């Protein structure tokens, strides 16, 4: 599913140069649940952006399902992105749309049409059927993140990426979101790459990859 070969990422500014990733080589088979751990600033988010086909400005090669999108045309990148569900730490719901509309947008973009039943099923799955017509501002943090997860699974993505999805939630809610994600991973059979600081959560994964200063420090299955 995912193959990284010697991937590096350097942020360059006027008067700084930060090496965020350095020589990352990684193979993730389809359907695997991988937690990405590491100290703050170790390059986890940078890696996820590359995996999520958001950042192309890196060295090394990245193959997603055997294709590389470096320098690819916008339409090809867009088509590949449709198979990726991205869950952000700060939810990134569209504030001027209802939750239903947020999911509908995802359906239109990913599938080109709106399947009402599917959207209803996604909302049911994240237990927000009663909040369909609420606006994001009217939801709690946990509810927002569930909505965001619901949006991410519209169109049954094959790769689910979550960058500290519980980072801004309290412990109980975080546990709820985490079990939702792990359940979805088994239900959908998708690959799940999850960034977390929480070792307990990380240990729920089949595989844990630890980054340290932009390099893979540890990589183990259990």
């Amino acid at each position, binding site marked *: 599913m995912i193959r990284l070969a010697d991937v590096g990422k350097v942020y360059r500014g006027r008067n700084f140069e930060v090496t965020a990733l350095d020589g990352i080589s990684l193979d993730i088979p389809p359907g695997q649940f991988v937690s990405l751990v590491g100290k703050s600033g170790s390059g986890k988010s940078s890696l996820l952006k590359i995996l999520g086909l958001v950042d192309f400005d890196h060295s090394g090669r990245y193959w997603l399902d055997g294709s590389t999108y470096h320098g690819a045309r*916008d*339409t090809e990148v*867009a088509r590949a992105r*449709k198979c990726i569900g*991205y869950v*952000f730490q700060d939810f990134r719901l569209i504030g*001027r749309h209802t939750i239903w509309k947020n999911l*509908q947008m995802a359906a239109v973009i990913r599938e080109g049409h709106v399947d009402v039943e599917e959207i209803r099923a996604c909302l049911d799955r994240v237990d927000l059927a009663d909040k369909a017509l609420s606006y994001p501002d009217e939801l709690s943090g946990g509810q927002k993140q569930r909505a965001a997860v619901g949006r991410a699974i519209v169109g049954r993505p094959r790769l689910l990426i979550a960058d500290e999805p519980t980072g801004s939630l309290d412990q109980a809610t975080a546990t709820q979101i985490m079990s939702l994600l792990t359940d979805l991973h088994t239900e959908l059979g998708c690959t799940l790459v999850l960034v977390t600081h929480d070792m307990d959560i990380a240990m729920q994964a089949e595989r844990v990859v630890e980054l340290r200063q932009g390099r893979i420090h540890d990589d183990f299955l259990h």
Partner: protein
Amino acid sequence: MTFFIRNCVAGLWFNRLRSTLTGIGVLVGVASVVLIMALSDALIATIDDEDVTSCQIALMSSAEADADVLDAMSSPDIVARLQGVAQRTDVASFAPEAQRHIVEVSLPTGVSIGSMVVNFTDSVPVIAGEPFTRATGDVVIMRPNPDFSNVTIGDQIVINGQFFQVIGTTDSHGMTPDTKLFLPERMSSLVDVDQLSTTGTHLLIGQQGFPFSEVRQSVIDQLNDGIDPDMKFFDMSAEMASGLRDALGTIQMVLGAIASVSLAVAALNIVNTMYIASLERVDEIAVLKSMGMTRVQVMALFLLESVLLVTIFALLGALIGNLCAALILTYADIPMAFSWMALATLVPVIVLVGAGGGFYPAHRAAKIDPVRLLR
């Protein structure tokens, strides 16, 4: 597609105050352009009225002084020409209509007879006696003229050996102090027109549905055929109409240009509004792109929104502009000339303004790179 349109409507509705204000700019611009077009089109249409059945034919001399024209009008050649044409078959085809009209005979101190054909019922207010009846030999006298001051209704008068019965009198009107006789046009050939009126123009009247414009031209051609090259007969009505049309055209263009400026300002406003909208939605677009929205789709979304905004308010503006024009024209008693041409040109202009105004913001939005915005 419907989803996209609904999304655009939602976008406009979300910022309804801003959309409305920008829209009002478009509305005012379009309304003023439409108003000016509708008004001037209606005015031009009244000039171009195809139902015209009369015209004034005037003699023009290259000589500077007016007196030369007056002299020319009474010169034997011109007199012969007018008489000749009046008896040609082309003009004779006016004959059935001519019964409704009369020849105005000007009678200054000597006896001079004009060839001016006037519409009796319109131009000769009979203040005493019977209205003009078309009966053979009926005349109406316009007072005062010392020679006719003692003539009363019912009298028989003789002009050049021809008997006429006076059936009415009318007051002196207009500017000529001359006494005038009004008699049926078909009588004009009976009157020996040895001295034509020095009035510079001759009224030609045709019947409704008569191919007036063709006959008019043939009359003018006949009059001009072999005339002294310094002189020329011309259709004064047509000249005046075309002069008026030119003037109106110029006014239309100037006012139209002024109105177009407000349309251009409205277009700039669209750029501004859509640009702000694109800035507001940077985060949103980043997320949508990360989900697989293409650049083209982002662009289409913004262009559609801008075109939608412009179209809605432009149509309203066109409606209001036309309504105002209709009101003004009704007030001025001028028939409304609804111009489909104007509408047909307006539609692409509107779409162009919308798409043009939305293009740069849409382009900016499409270029947003999600990498800077997602963490």
